[in-house]
């Protein structure tokens, strides 16, 4: 039997970078094949080439033994190759069934299609309502729509690009069940991920990429995480050092009965949120995105103020009515989720970006910027946090995600904050830089600062946090001690609230199973 898909010597370069360098691999019918690699290893480019959304500079692709000519997404789909994108290819303003009608190329009979969707989605254990607008769906539900859309085509090969990055642990289990069922029916699956445990649980074989090259193939179920990680990273990962925390007597950040309306129709209302973070500890806030994190972050950072000053105390002072600059004066520092655009001005040089928040440290005198001072300030951050950059003159957008994040975190830490807020600290950051950033956060807290980490990566929170909070539908759970809880408990809390009463449409937000 010929392989379902075979790649021979695929090479693709973009200006200044070889994204895929002489890649060969093959996938048999019914096989679940992992493509493992860090961010920037070339996984996504390779998938685009397989799907026909990008064309290789050289090399050949065979499907069931026949070469694919004039490769576009349309030819792929004619061959039964379907892809679920990491960033979903769905139109938000129209309904599920309309979205699916756009991708399946037969008659425009929405009622019949809706019945088909309901039937198929139930058969694979991931029910969706075909008449809801995509805009009102949670990320997990959107992913189901994508998968159902592919399944309607009865695919022979299904490509999934980092499908679990937005799912709760329970939803991941469901997804894996669906994928196994599909594979048992003969569908081949290409599973792209950088999460080793998932690959070990699900996949039969793995191709590991680093810097655009294949660095090895493995049978994940028979390999250790360390072996796979070495193939991925090219070196042993540094070990985390988490010493016991000694929390301060008084909280540095205290949130009391914080209630706030949603910012817009698609936002989430915060309901009576109370928690505290003490100096010397790291508190993690877990939750599926879209459950009020954005609202809470903007209220904590001061981007949005609250009329009742007493709902937020920073270092013992009422602060909810203060703007971001005034809160920074109280010793707060903040690393937002969006690095480009919020954390840094993309076209500006690093030294200019340093001045944005470090102007208080003497970099601005009589209203004039001290260029020399700012340059050496930026140079110190680059050196101390091992940022790979072309000096303080490099523009923020020229850095890779991980390096820019190191720079931004470094810039904020250089302000010696008493309170450190950080959202999604390692999103889109490669494994090595992520480990470094996590260690930095731990070190910062052990030196006495209060650190609040908002993250969707449970592994990360379990690795560094002393206490964990869970946000769901605008409500924050009581704190859980990291060492006395587990992923299952947190996962349940992430989908917990209001499941019984079903009072509002938004109740679906976090329900993933």
């Amino acid at each position, binding site marked *: 039997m010929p392989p379902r898909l075979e790649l021979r010597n695929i090479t693709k370069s973009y200006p200044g970078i070889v994204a895929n360098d002489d890649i060969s691999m093959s996938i048999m019918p019914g096989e679940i094949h992992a493509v493992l690699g860090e961010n920037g290893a070339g996984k996504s480019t390779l998938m685009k080439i397989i799907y026909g959304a990008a064309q290789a500079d050289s090399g050949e692709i065979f499907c069931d033994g026949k070469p694919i000519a004039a490769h*576009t997404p349309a030819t792929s789909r004619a061959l039964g190759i379907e892809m679920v994108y990491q960033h979903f*290819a769905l*139109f*938000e*303003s129209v309904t599920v069934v*309309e979205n699916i009608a*756009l991708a399946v190329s037969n008659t425009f009979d929405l009622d019949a299609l809706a019945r088909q969707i309901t039937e198929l989605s139930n058969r694979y254990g991931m029910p969706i309502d075909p008449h809801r607008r995509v805009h009102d769906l949670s990320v997990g539900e959107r992913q189901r729509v994508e998968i159902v859309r592919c399944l309607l085509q009865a695919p022979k090969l299904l490509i999934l690009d980092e499908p679990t990055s937005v799912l709760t642990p329970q939803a991941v289990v469901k997804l894996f069940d669906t994928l196994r069922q599909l594979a048992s029916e003969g569908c081949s699956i290409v599973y792209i991920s950088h999460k080793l445990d998932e690959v070990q649980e699900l996949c039969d074989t793995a191709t590991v990429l680093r810097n655009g090259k294949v660095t090895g193939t493995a049978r994940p179920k028979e390999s250790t995480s360390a072996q796979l990680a070495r193939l991925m990273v090219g070196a042993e990962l540094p070990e985390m050092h988490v010493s016991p925390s000694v929390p301060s007597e008084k909280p540095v950040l205290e949130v009391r009965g914080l209630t706030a309306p949603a910012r817009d129709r698609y936002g989430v209302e915060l309901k009576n949120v109370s928690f505290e973070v003490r100096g010397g500890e790291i508190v993690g806030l877990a939750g599926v995105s879209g459950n009020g994190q954005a609202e809470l972050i903007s209220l904590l950072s001061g981007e949005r103020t609250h009329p009742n000053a007493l709902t937020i105390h920073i270092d013992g002072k009422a602060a909810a009515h203060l703007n971001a600059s005034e809160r920074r004066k109280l010793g707060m520092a903040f690393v937002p989720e969006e690095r480009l655009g919020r954390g840094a001005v993309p076209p500006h040089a690093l030294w200019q970006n340093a001045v944005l928040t470090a102007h208080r440290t003497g970099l601005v005198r009589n209203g004039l910027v001290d260029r020399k001072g700012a340059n050496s300030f930026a140079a110190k951050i680059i050196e101390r946090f091992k940022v790979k950059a072309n000096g303080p003159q490099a523009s923020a957008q020229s850095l890779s995600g991980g390096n820019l994040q190191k720079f931004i975190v470094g810039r904020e830490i250089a302000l010696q904050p008493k309170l450190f807020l950080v959202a999604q600290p390692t999103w889109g950051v490669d494994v090595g830089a992520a480990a470094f950033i996590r260690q930095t956060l731990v070190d910062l807290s052990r030196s006495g600062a209060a650190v609040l980490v908002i993250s969707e990566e449970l592994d990360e929170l379990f690795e560094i946090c002393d206490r964990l909070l869970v946000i769901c539908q605008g409500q924050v759970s009581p704190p859980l001690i990291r060492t006395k809880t587990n992923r299952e408990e947190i996962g349940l809390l992430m989908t917990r609230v209001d499941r019984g009463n079903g009072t509002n449409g938004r109740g679906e937000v976090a329900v993933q199973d």
Partner: protein
Amino acid sequence: MDLFIAIFTGTIIAATPLIFAALGELVVEKSGVLNLGIEGMMLIGAAFAFWAVIAGLPMPVAILAGALGGAAASLLFGVLALTFLTNQYAAGLALAIFGSGVSAFLGRNFGSAPIDALDRISIPFLSDIPVIGPMFFRFDPMVYFAIVMFAVISWFLYRTKGGLILRTIGESPETAHAIGYPVIRIRYLAVLFGGLMAGLAGAYLSVAYTPLWVENMTAGKGWISLALVVFATWRPLRVLLGAWLFGGMTILQLQGQALGIAVPSELLSALPYLATIVVLVIISQNRQMLALHFPASLAKPFRPAT
């Protein structure tokens, strides 16, 4: 009663060019392209149609000439904005200015004599009904055609796969491209359709509304059409109602001037523009509706990735 009928029919007629132009632009904007050049395309359409009439061509051919003139002008915009990815605002403004220049140039030899206007048709039997007859059944064919176009466009946008594709391209051309739709080609078609409709609007002005060549005869109606589309929150029915509102205000202020109301005539002339915008601003306050119907990628250049 006669006055009421006169105001009513006048309203419908005054609204007709706006209906054509604004519905055309609605389709263009729904595909995610902003063509600010309606005024220019209308003027070119007006000049082409007028020229065809004085050249002795039959009326339907003249109107078609106007439509094709508008489409040709829109093609120019299409090449700039869709093929060369220039800034759509700049390209549209350039087209508006270019169109007014071209029409003035063509119109140098048109003279000042009026032409025979497009005939009104009296629909047999129906037009003889008292009151209803003169109100609804004695218009020229273009008035009915505008209403038909409204029905066709509404049906196309919300009931057909083609309309769904057009709307989703306006939301996210990247996604549409990813699932295999020819974004640029579809946008070209939308732009050309918008040009045809603007050309029709111009033709209507020069051969039916005021069958007499006047330079800049659109008098800002292209710009009002643009505003109509935005304030109607990209919905055909609201465009239609907005156009009628504008038409009604136009006729009312003319009546007001005729009656000698003690308000400067310049102010009265400004009234339709002002009233239309105020009303539309008020009805477009609903943010949710706006978010739902706004073509999210409007005026953003798109080039398929390779």
